[in-house]
């Protein structure tokens, strides 16, 4: 056994061997005599490193003979271990690359050699030839495969550019020749197949080359770009330079890859490479095409080849992803104008093929899900194809009208079929038709289907719009049918329960199947009917609008409204139900689902319901309401009569539906408090209803809304059983609703119902004589916590037009909260929540506040910090949660300070006059800036920070970010700080620079530089800031002094005159450019540049030592 020390010792020997000077003769000797593979490997590495390091000193001839030696060595020893051989070839490649610019060493002779090797017909030799080419390619690609040889990006870029114009083409031609040769052969034995595979992989590598644009000087940004390229080489689109025209526009090249694939498609490894080559060819674009015509010819040929390849074969599992990549690349790369210029027949058969492929991949993907496979190749392929469809149909005006309708119908149908249970669908059916039904544990981290499959659903929804005539009635019919069945099933269960009264005996299989059907139908309907653009007002999709308009003449508006207004009845039982607007009928199908759910809860069947379905319903309604409710005719060129009659502003329909949605929300909140996600989606629906003034105006006219407000204010069941986040959002919604249009009496009454009880209860409680005695009682604590939660909710409701009143309301509480800090100083969970209220208020409101109001907020925040500090300073807690509690408090406090500081760069108070009339203008010049406040705040909490607490990475980060922020924005404030604060700030900086992570020290250095500039500006030498900064600079300067010493030692130890001169020159030019030190940006850049040059130039030399 080898001990650890022995191993380390051995490693050390090799490492120092690799650093030895001019090891060439020794290495050659080792290579020729040693039998130990690992030693051979190390010798090759040593040669490579030494050549790069001692490049300047080597003669061209000796380098060339070294290359010849290495190549001959490898050729003569076919039985070398693979890793040794590759290492030697790597050395060759590195040497060639290093020499390609300044010593005119080129690949020509190597290529000559290689083509001879290839023509030898000996598989081993041919593989070796391939390895040589691959090594060169990797080295020159300037990608993550490239060795690190300590040269500038510019060097790598220039080498690459030179290489791609000539040598790369040469490699590609050699590769193509080999592939051609092999593809002509009838039978390939295993050995030949291996060679074939090597060259195929090489071809793939060439086609994945990330081409640099020719002949131009790199800008700084481009340099960054190439650096990024070093990191990633995946998904490069093929964009060759114009000089590649003859090579890649030759149809025979493309044909060859189709032929090759046909030949090897059953070998899954090779098939991956050949399909990837084709996918790269399908992504070709750029200057290689002289004109659009050339592009068209190329695309037509590609498409024909592809269709020939796909039709007439049964696709292997391993081909699915590759084929979908080809299609996806093709559709996203070629411009619409080229696609539409294709011969009609060709385009039609392409679309037809794409349709069949999509449906078939979809079915296979469903099978994969049933079998719970780890590797979901069909799902990936299906995703790709759906993405391609989306790209295609999003710009469908370029294509002949209606050309995508039939394909869309087919793809849509197959999607629905895969997601419905038997007999209508095939969900959970294995290939031989056996149903599988497993219930797995799903944790909260697993995304909901609507997010998990959002891309798929968006594509399917889009296709559904394209074929609205078919898809909307289809969804409606299926959903109505499922709802009727669900209703019947629940009724049967109810009777059954009344008979036996044991819910455990209920078989949920039928129910769960119905729920799952409904789940998918609602998701697809939601994605079809509406988009969910973040921030903007979503519009009714034009296809849906057109569809509704097209049929509006056949529609009876009254029956439509009747259908909409009677969610408790079966749709088909309404006379004339077939003459109703289909878009409205789809919505009303969802409302019918919702009604069945609500009735079941009233019949105490909640246990049997699916919370998932409940979520789907409110999710749909929310998405729908954002787009359709109170549809604004001004936003549309043309509007459908049924839609505007049913949902337009000032319509009974709109009022009715708002009332209905409100009732739904209230019902959900009372029966589903135990389902956090569902309650959350529900309350979000409520927020949607009130966040827009127009909708809120209707909402506040509903009696139910007032009931909800009263009920919530009274803190009685069931609303108080909701989780705290839901309660917060509910409070937010209630406050938002208060800013709807109401006459002043009503408004007063509203606030009296919503906000005043909160205040009243709170004041009554804390003003009780014995509050100090009862404050620890649970009921009291609960009440306090509920109030604090509500305050957070109120703060969240802040908008520019309500900030004035909300601020005054909250301010009263904030002062009381400070009292609570005293009372509950021993109750960390309450303290934490109190700080959170302050954080929320500062976060939401500070940017709108004028001077006086800001001052008030600053003041109260500072008092909070003082009290917190007083209660915690010198306190020692040793219970289990102590550290965690303190960490959370401090994190919130840092957040609070950062929020306050944000006033300095986000301030709407000057432009927006929300406080006009209230604010007494106090003349020019702000007395106290946010920075003062924050610095003062930092001073208060600083003593509470300990090095242990700084071990919480997020707290540490937040803290140093805050400090750096302050120094960067207000370097002039720093010298004016009180002495103690100044000292502790400087201590923090020192601590950060010396004993924290590199990220933190970087932050500290960033903080330091504005401080140093501040010193330089004022030119006063005895200010404390100057002294402190000098201290820091000294820390850094010590390094510099060491540096000079190091230089001296290096130079004196250097006996070799050539190297001595080089080093001395290099050091001189390094320091020359950096004196005299000014703060000019140009100077800094110049210094950085010479530093870079220096490192590249002598870095290798210094290592010789």
């Amino acid at each position: 056994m080898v001990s650890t020390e022995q191993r380390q010792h051995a490693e050390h020997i090799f490492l120092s061997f690799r650093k030895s000077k001019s090891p060439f003769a020794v290495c050659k000797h080792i290579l020729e005599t040693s039998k130990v593979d690992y030693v051979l490997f190390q010798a090759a590495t040593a040669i490579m490193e030494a050549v790069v390091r001692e490049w300047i000193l080597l003669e061209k001839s000796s380098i060339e003979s070294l290359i010849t030696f290495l190549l001959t060595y490898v050729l003569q020893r076919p039985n070398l271990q693979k890793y040794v051989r590759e290492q030697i070839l790597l050395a060759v490649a590195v040497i060639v690359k290093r020499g390609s610019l300044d010593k005119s060493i080129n690949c020509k002779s190597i290529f000559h050699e290689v083509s001879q090797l290839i023509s030898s017909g000996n598989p081993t030799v041919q593989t070796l030839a391939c390895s040589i080419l691959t090594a060169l390619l990797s080295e020159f690609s300037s990608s993550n495969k490239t060795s690190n040889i300590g040269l500038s990006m510019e060097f790598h870029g220039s080498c690459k550019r030179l290489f791609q114009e000539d040598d790369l083409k040469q490699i590609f031609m050699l590769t193509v020749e080999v592939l051609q040769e092999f593809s002509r052969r009838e039978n390939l034995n295993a050995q030949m197949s291996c060679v074939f595979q090597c060259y195929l992989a090489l071809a793939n590598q060439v086609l994945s080359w990330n081409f640099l644009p020719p002949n131009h000087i790199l800008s700084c940004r481009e340099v960054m770009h190439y650096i990024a390229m070093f990191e990633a080489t995946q998904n490069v689109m093929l964009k060759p330079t114009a000089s590649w025209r003859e090579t890649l526009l030759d149809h025979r090249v493309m044909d060859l890859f189709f032929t090759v694939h046909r030949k090897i498609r059953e070998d899954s490894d090779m098939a991956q490479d050949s399909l990837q080559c084709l996918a790269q060819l399908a992504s070709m674009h750029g200057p290689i095409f002289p004109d659009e015509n050339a592009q068209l010819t190329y695309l037509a040929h590609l498409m024909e080849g592809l269709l020939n390849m796909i039709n007439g074969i049964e696709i292997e599992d391993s081909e699915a992803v590759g084929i979908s990549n080809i299609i996806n690349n093709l559709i996203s790369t070629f411009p619409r104008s080229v696609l539409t210029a294709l011969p009609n027949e060709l385009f039609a058969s392409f679309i037809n093929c794409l349709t069949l492929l999509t449906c078939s991949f979809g079915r296979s993907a469903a099978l994969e899900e049933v079998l719970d496979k780890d590797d979901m190749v069909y799902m990936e392929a299906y995703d790709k194809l759906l993405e391609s469809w989306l790209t295609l149909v999003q710009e469908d005006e370029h294509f002949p009208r209606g050309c995508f309708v039939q394909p869309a119908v087919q793809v849509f149908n197959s999607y629905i079929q895969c997601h419905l249970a038997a007999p209508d669908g095939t969900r959970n059916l294995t290939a031989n038709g056996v149903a599988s039904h497993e219930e797995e544990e799903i944790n909260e981290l697993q995304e909901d289907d609507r997010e998990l499959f959002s891309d798929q659903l968006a594509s399917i929804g889009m296709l559904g719009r394209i074929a609205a005539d078919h898809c909307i009635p289809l969804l409606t019919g299926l959903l109505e049918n499922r709802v009727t069945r669900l209703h019947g099933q629940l009724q049967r269960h109810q009777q059954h329960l009344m008979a036996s009264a044991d819910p455990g005996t209920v078989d949920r299989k039928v129910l769960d199947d119905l729920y799952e059907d409904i789940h998918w139908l609602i998701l697809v309907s939601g994605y079809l009917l509406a988009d969910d653009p973040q921030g903007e007002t979503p519009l009714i999709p034009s296809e849906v609008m057109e569809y509704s308009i097209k049929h509006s003449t056949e529609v009876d508006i009254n029956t439509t409204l009747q259908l909409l207004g009677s969610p408790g009845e079966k749709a088909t039982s309404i006379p004339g139900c077939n003459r109703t607007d289909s878009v409205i009928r789809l919505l009303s199908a969802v409302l019918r689902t919702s009604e069945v759910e609500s009735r079941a809860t009233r019949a105490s069947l909640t246990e049997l319901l699916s919370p998932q379905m409940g979520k789907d319903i409110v999710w749909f309604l929310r998405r729908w309401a954002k787009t359709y409710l109170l549809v604004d005719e001004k936003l549309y060129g043309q509007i459908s009569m049924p839609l505007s009659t049913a949902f337009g502003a000032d319509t009974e329909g709109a009022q009715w539906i708002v009332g209905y949605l409100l009732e739904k929300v209230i019902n959900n909140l009372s029966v589903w408090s135990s389902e956090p996600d569902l309650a959350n989606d529900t309350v979000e629906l409520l927020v949607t209803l009130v966040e827009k003034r127009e909708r809120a105006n209707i909402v506040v006219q509903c009696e139910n809304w007032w009931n909800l407000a009263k009920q919530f204010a009274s803190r009685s069941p069931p609303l108080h059983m909701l989780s705290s986040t839901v309660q917060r959002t509910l409070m937010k919604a209630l406050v938002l609703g208060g800013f709807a249009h109401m006459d002043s009496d009503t408004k007063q009454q509203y606030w009296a119902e919503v906000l005043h009880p909160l205040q009243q209860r709170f004041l009554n409680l804390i003003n009780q004589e014995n509050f100090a005695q009862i404050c620890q009682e649970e009921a009291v604590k609960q009440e306090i916590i509920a109030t604090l939660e509500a305050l957070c909710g109120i703060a969240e409701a802040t908008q520019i037009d309500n900030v004035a009143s909300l601020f005054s309301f909250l301010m009263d509480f904030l002062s009381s909260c400070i009292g609570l800090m005293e009372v509950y100083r021993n109750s960390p969970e309450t303290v934490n929540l109190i700080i959170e209220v302050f954080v929320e208020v500062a976060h939401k409101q500070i940017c709108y506040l004028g001077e006086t109001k800001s001052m008030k907020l600053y003041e109260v925040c500072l008092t909070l910090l003082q009290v917190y500090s007083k209660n915690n300073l010198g306190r020692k807690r040793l219970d289990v949660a102590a550290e965690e509690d303190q960490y959370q408090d401090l994190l919130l406090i840092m957040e609070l300070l950062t929020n306050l500081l944000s006033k300095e760069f986000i301030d709407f108070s000057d432009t927006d006059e929300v406080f006009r009339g209230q604010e007494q203008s106090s003349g020019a010049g702000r007395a106290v800036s946010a920075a003062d406040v924050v610095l003062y705040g930092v001073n208060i909490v600083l003593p509470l920070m300990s090095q242990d607490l700084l071990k919480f990475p997020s707290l540490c980060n937040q803290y140093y970010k805050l400090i750096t922020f302050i120094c960067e924005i207000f370097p002039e404030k720093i010298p004016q700080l009180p002495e103690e604060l100044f000292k502790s700030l400087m201590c923090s900086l020192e601590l950060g620079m010396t004993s924290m992570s590199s990220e933190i020290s970087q932050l500290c250095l960033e903080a330091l530089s504005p401080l140093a500039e501040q010193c330089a500006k004022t030119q006063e030498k005895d200010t404390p800031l100057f002294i402190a900064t000098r201290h820091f600079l000294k820390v850094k300067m010590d390094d510099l002094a060491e540096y000079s010493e190091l230089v001296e030692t290096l130079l004196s130890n250097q006996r070799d005159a050539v190297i001595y001169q080089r080093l001395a020159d290099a050091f001189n030019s390094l320091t020359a450019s950096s004196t005299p030190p000014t703060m000019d940006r140009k100077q800094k850049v110049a210094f950085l540049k010479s530093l870079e040059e220096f490192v590249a130039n002598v870095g290798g030399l210094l290592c010789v030592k």
Partner: protein
Amino acid sequence: MADADLDFTIGDAGASATYPMQCSTLRKNGFVVLKGRPCKIVEMSTSKTGKHGHAKVHMVGIDIFSGKKYEDICPSTHNMDVPNIKRMDYQVCNGEYYCTVSTSYIFTNFCFSTFQLIGIQDGYLSLLQDSGEVREDLKMPEGDLGKEIESKFDAGEETLITVLSAMNEEAAVAIKAMAK
């Protein structure tokens, strides 16, 4: 010396040690009774069986006295017991009698009941209440905190001791130097 049995009635006689709460309303950092022990909730997550199943709540708590970890999982509609937690500050001083005056912002009529630590015996703290009664049932905490109390007591420094109580169990958990 007082009878140990009597000491259980100190504080809120009659108030129940726990009260029920629906599982879904519990929150992280809050408290719950797990396996009969008062715990601070340090982790809370939900899960369900099957896509259409109902939520279950999974809780991890730390015993507020022993620091031991407990876990439980239950349907989110169920009620869980929540312990009544009390934290009182006791002033420790040597000889003289102090009353902590709160610098409360808005409450003027508020003051903690104070106790005088008159000695440390056999690992128990002796505290004198306002009423003149002595309670000697509070164990001297082990480890650093105990040492700290002892040294502060010996040095005659004025300090506050925070006593945590829940479900008929009490422990000193923190000390703080009194603001002068």
